[in-house]
């Protein structure tokens, strides 16, 4: 039986994603963690591409690659990096490991035992996506803009320095 190229690519992207994720939760250096996160995000973008969610892949690369990781790195630069060189975990990390393995097992069981009617993967064109977003989901969209506004104001209020008191 021929192994399909898309499946190979999928495994590759999954490997990058999970590897990156493991890097984030394992490494002792925060800068490495940031790059591992970036790798994981790119892996996710790859997965999106493979199932024809091109637009989302683009958004993923732009926002995570371009914004999130950059923000994280900038934030780290504002602090003394040596504080972040030798990170340790909670002493109860084995419990955390047990919990997350249990969670994984639970989720996989649910996936395996739940039957879903599937079809061929289909893409969604930009036009439909935009129309849905701006008509049917206009209210959440506007509320989301308020959320962003609050985050913006909040960040400014909190980070702004008043000179004399900092």
């Amino acid at each position: 039986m021929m192994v399909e190229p898309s499946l190979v690519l999928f495994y590759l992207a999954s490997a990058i994603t999970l590897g990156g994720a493991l890097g984030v939760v394992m490494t002792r250096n925060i800068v490495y963690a940031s790059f591992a996160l970036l790798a994981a995000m790119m892996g996710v973008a790859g997965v999106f591409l493979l199932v024809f969610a091109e637009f989302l892949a683009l958004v993923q690369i732009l926002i995570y690659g371009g914004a999130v990781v950059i923000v994280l790195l900038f934030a780290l630069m504002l602090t003394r990096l040596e504080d972040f060189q030798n990170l340790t975990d909670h002493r109860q990390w084995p419990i955390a490991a047990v919990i997350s393995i249990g969670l994984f097992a639970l989720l996989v069981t649910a996936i395996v035992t739940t039957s879903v009617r599937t079809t061929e993967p289909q893409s969604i064109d930009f036009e439909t996506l935009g129309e849905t977003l701006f008509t049917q989901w206009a209210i959440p969209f506007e509320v989301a803009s308020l959320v962003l506004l609050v985050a913006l104001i909040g960040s400014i209020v909190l980070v702004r320095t008043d000179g004399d008191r900092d």
Partner: protein
Amino acid sequence: MNNNFLLLMPEFLVTGLAFLVLTADFFLRGDRKNFLPYLAVLGLIGALTFTLIDQWDRVDHLYEGLILIDGYALFFKAFFLVLGVIVVLSSVEYVKRNLDNPGEYYGILIFTIVGMMLMAASGELLTAYISLELLSFGLYVLVSFDRYGAKSNEAGTKYILLGAFSSALMLYGISQVYGLLGTTRFDGIAEALSATPDISPGVLVGLVLIIAGLGFKVASVPFHMWAPDAYEGAPIPVTAYLAVGSKAAAFALVLRFFVEALMPAVGDWQMIIVIMAALTMTVGNLVALAQSNLKRLLAYSSIGHVGYLLMGVAALAAVGDDGRVQLQLSHLASNGLMLHLVAYGVTNMAVFLGIAVVYNATGKDDIANLAGLSRRAPFLSAVMAVSFFSLAGLPIFAGFVSKFYLFNAVALQGLLWLAGLAIFTSLISLYYYLNVVRQIYIEDAPDPTPISMPKLTVGVMGVLFLAIIFLGVYPVPLMEAIQHASDALMSSESPIGLSQGLR
């Protein structure tokens, strides 16, 4: 698709008010910034009046049930607006003394009210989630608003990390619901759930994750760890808001979600909620015994109260012997829940306002700081003692009636043992409340100088005091409003209504 956006007028008005306050902040200098809270209060009262006139008896919806306009939503909108007025008024003194940037403070506070109003009105998971985030984001900022207080920053950090974690859990749940049921609208979920005899494991996992996420938001055990830290670190009026507002909003959402979406699957979630409720009230009240900080004590006590409220959720329906879902008594549980929310809210606001006064005078908020308060501020002490008795559920105060009603509703649904446990834990709570009352009335004050209170604070406290007693002696008018809200929630004429084919 014909959508009448005028239905969202209350939310638009309040949003506009938030912008107005933010903008006015630029133009006011120095002392004139003290006008901001009054501007906010006037605006909120205006919005309240408009909402009541405009949406009275109106039943409608937007986008096929994304936003529901009904008596239930109206009840909570009015409650949140009134609460907003009280929170703003209780903040005035504290903000003036302790915080910078009053404009941003009140602006963000008002944004969160919009979030709360939308939570009570949403009939769909994404809308509910985004509204919840609007509330949560505002609270993250408000909790850390005391920028130079390390405790406040610490509280904010823990709050936002756990808040984000809970959002992630909830979103995973939502994705499961979307993928396996094909809809996130409450009526659609109910329909899909009643279409099949057994819900699939995937959906169940999704629902459990959503419940866990909501459990974080209401600080239910075992998802409560953030609450004491956030309560203690946050500026006092924000703590009050956190304890009352965010909780009420979360329960407004929970109640609608459970009644309108999850009712057909009651057999699958009831036990989970029962266990959560039992754990929450027990742990909250037991741990409260060990507290020495007043805000922390109230955090754990409010966890205890969340247990009682969750009990109301658990009692929303019973599964009969024939396996059919029985709804005859559902409105009693939801009535009890709402009544207790209001009673608890009014009472807690009074307590926190009192703590703020003491904090402004002494700079501390430990229980021991209340020593001899009755000689320094007799009125304040009386209000605080009354509030603690009300929280403990003693008559003639609001807490007694609401507990009696709620516990009865739970007992009627065949959960007598749970109601008994609740009564027992409120006995425990009496012990630690009495210890606070003891500090106020029996211990001697190290510094007997009288504490002076601004007239505004006295006025607000007086109103809350009368409200606690009035609700305890004559809750009938409030109960009628609540009954109206419950009817709207449960009636088949509501925009989406209780789904027909319950299995």
